């Protein structure tokens, strides 16, 4: 066995590893997060993954939107895996005055709990914290819509929102994060409607499955359809099997 032989066998895997490493090096501070953009975050272990899903108003306009998160070149399910189950959350916020400030987030609350919960939640602090988080992630550079960060980073979800599920202590009811494969209720929280503070409503559903598919639908009580195995996973698996097959054939030929 010569070094040349070893290098030839390893070349496809080295190329793939280098490619993955290069893509993983994307800096979270290169993300552009506009007001109202819905952010998906996967967290609870040492590394976190974020994806800008675009304007919440578009995603919640109706129908179901499926996004193949598992096919991301950042390998979010591998990057965020650890001793704790992967958690995920959704957050967006926008507004210029208290009267037009609102947020969208995903919650374990039922529709009735949403109605009952408004007095223990605070929309304005969530919006203000979201502004700080958007700023830390980076507003000036347009490149990139997804990124990873160490959980210890000052700009991480863990640092900004914590892992207690109450969005930094601003949301006191239920939990505003979910496990993989659990469907969460999407809620809209308005800072103020007339003299009434923290008015919440049911505006949709969302789920992040363990096979990598993120689905979201708009409208109270909307139904999420079963989702197929992501095409990227099929392609990746096929490619991997092919590479192994080629390698085995070459080894057999040299034997």
């Amino acid at each position: 066995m010569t070094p040349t032989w070893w290098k030839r066998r390893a070349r496809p895997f080295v190329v793939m590893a280098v490619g993955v490493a290069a893509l993983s090096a994307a800096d979270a501070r290169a993300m552009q997060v506009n007001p109202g953009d819905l952010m998906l975050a996967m967290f609870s272990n040492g590394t976190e993954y974020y994806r800008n899903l675009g304007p919440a108003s578009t995603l919640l306009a109706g129908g179901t939107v499926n996004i193949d998160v598992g096919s991301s070149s950042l390998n979010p399910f591998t990057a965020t895996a650890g001793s704790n189950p992967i958690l995920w959350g959704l957050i967006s916020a926008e507004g210029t005055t208290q009267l037009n400030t609102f947020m969208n987030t995903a919650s374990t609350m039922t529709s009735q709990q949403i109605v009952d919960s408004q007095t223990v939640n605070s929309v304005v602090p969530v919006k203000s914290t979201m502004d700080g988080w958007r700023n830390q992630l980076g507003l000036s550079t347009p490149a990139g819509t997804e990124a990873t960060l160490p959980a210890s980073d000052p700009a991480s979800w863990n640092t900004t929102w914590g892992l207690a599920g109450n969005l930094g202590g601003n949301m006191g009811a239920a939990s505003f994060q979910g496990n993989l494969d659990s469907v969460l209720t999407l809620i809209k929280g308005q800072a103020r409607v007339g003299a009434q503070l923290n008015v919440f409503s049911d505006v949709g559903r969302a789920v992040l499955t363990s096979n990598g598919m993120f689905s979201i639908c708009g409208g109270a009580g909307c139904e999420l359809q079963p989702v197929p195995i992501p095409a990227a996973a099929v392609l990746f698996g096929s490619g991997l099997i092919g590479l192994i097959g080629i390698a085995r054939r070459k080894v057999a030929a040299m034997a």
Partner: protein
Amino acid sequence: MNCHFTFGRGPIWAAALCTLGLAAPYAAQADINIVGSTHGQAYQGVANPVAGQAAASVPLSLCDAGGMPERYQNQANLVDPNGPPPPNQILIPAGNIVVWRCTRGGVPNFLFRYTGGFSAMAYGNIKAPLNSPASMFTSIVPGGAGCAAEPGGNPKTDPGTGRQYNSFINCSQIVQVTANFATSDTNGPAFQPTMCDQSGTCAQTILNTGVTAFPITATAFSVIVGNGVQKCDPTTKAAAGKISLTRVQVEAIYSGAIASWNQLGYCVYPVAPLNPADGSLGAGAGDMSPIGTPFNAAIDQSIVTCSRPVDAGTRIVYDAVFQKDVTQITTGTIGPPFSGDFNYLAPTVADGLACVQGRSAAPASPANMNAITYNRADEAASPLVFGLGNVGRMRGGYPVAVDGVLPSNYLAPAVLNNPTAQERQNSQKAFRCGQYLFWADWVGIQRNTPDANQALWNQYIAGIANLLPRTQIGYFHARNLRPPAGGPAVNSEMFVQKANTKGPIQFNATDNTSGALNCR
């Protein structure tokens, strides 16, 4: 100077000496340019001191005895050409640019320049190399366009130093000068990217790379509410007097988690007419209604919050000292006027007070008697800028005890603008004894590269130490001055020690060594 040339090597020496002699006066004319926070205005003297006031001009103490120093100031807001284009242009507030011209070291036309406004901008100036474009800030031309003798007539007498000077105001001709030194309401690392305001701007951490920041003075912070806010009787809901707050409550209010006074057990009542009336306040301003005034459900019980922009040191210090664990509200309207919303950004110190008690002069604003704001106690208390509309004597609102302590006892002095030393000491007692925990350093900043004016800067800092007891702001001030090189405080009568940018705060609530300040 007459230059006589002789023969041999003599002419060479003579020519050299002659040249040095001609050049020396100009080399010695090292103007000193300082850019910094509004707080620094307190040390630059006043355009028209009132006899008996306790004002003191520190720059005047740098001038030679004799002669007639001149003081120049802008009277109107001036557009800063270094700021962004309209509509986001920066206005340097009226009175924030001061230039002193006098004879120093026997050389005439020494210029002392101070421009106050925004701490972050000053930091940027001083971190840039001397004479580089980024080091330039806006000053006024002494004797330039617009400058006119102060209407009260010249000369003036500075009460603090006893020196006479001629005073000119309304200067509008601007000039760009390099920053020799800077001041800030807070140390650079206190600026955090999570501090954002409703303009969409967020603060950025300023590292002290290439510069040294050192505390000059320490100043208390005060929280102020409108006169409509009172305790309410738990049974009858009738008005029951001034409220107090805890730091955590203040934090919850400014995070938006608490948006109604009722959530804290307080109520908003109609205000009573001011007696005597005050035409300088805005529509709706009034005095506190008497205790026992019935609750009126028609009165808006919500909390109106008045904040400051993230490029103002006051805001950053407030965030670091009060808003320790959560972020401040980022929604709301940029005033003035402060009308039609629940949260406002007040661009200047004076605007922060106008947000509560309104203002009849331009830019006018109605009052918000259910509002809350914050300010450095010394600036808010200074009658130099705000007349009677200051924290201690502001008529549309009142300072609130935080965690049970006021930054001052706020007892009206016998002479409103000229408290005695004993009255000042009494007012500062809680702060200087370490019982009032909410305060911040005012810092000086200098480059780590040598500056020809270092000795002059040191003299200026020392001048603040010496003259502070005789300034008007001394009424609310803790005299905790330290030299530029660090080391022990110039004046050690204050025992409070605080982390550089943010708590925890430790203090030693004991009497000082002289026994002059009985803290127990």
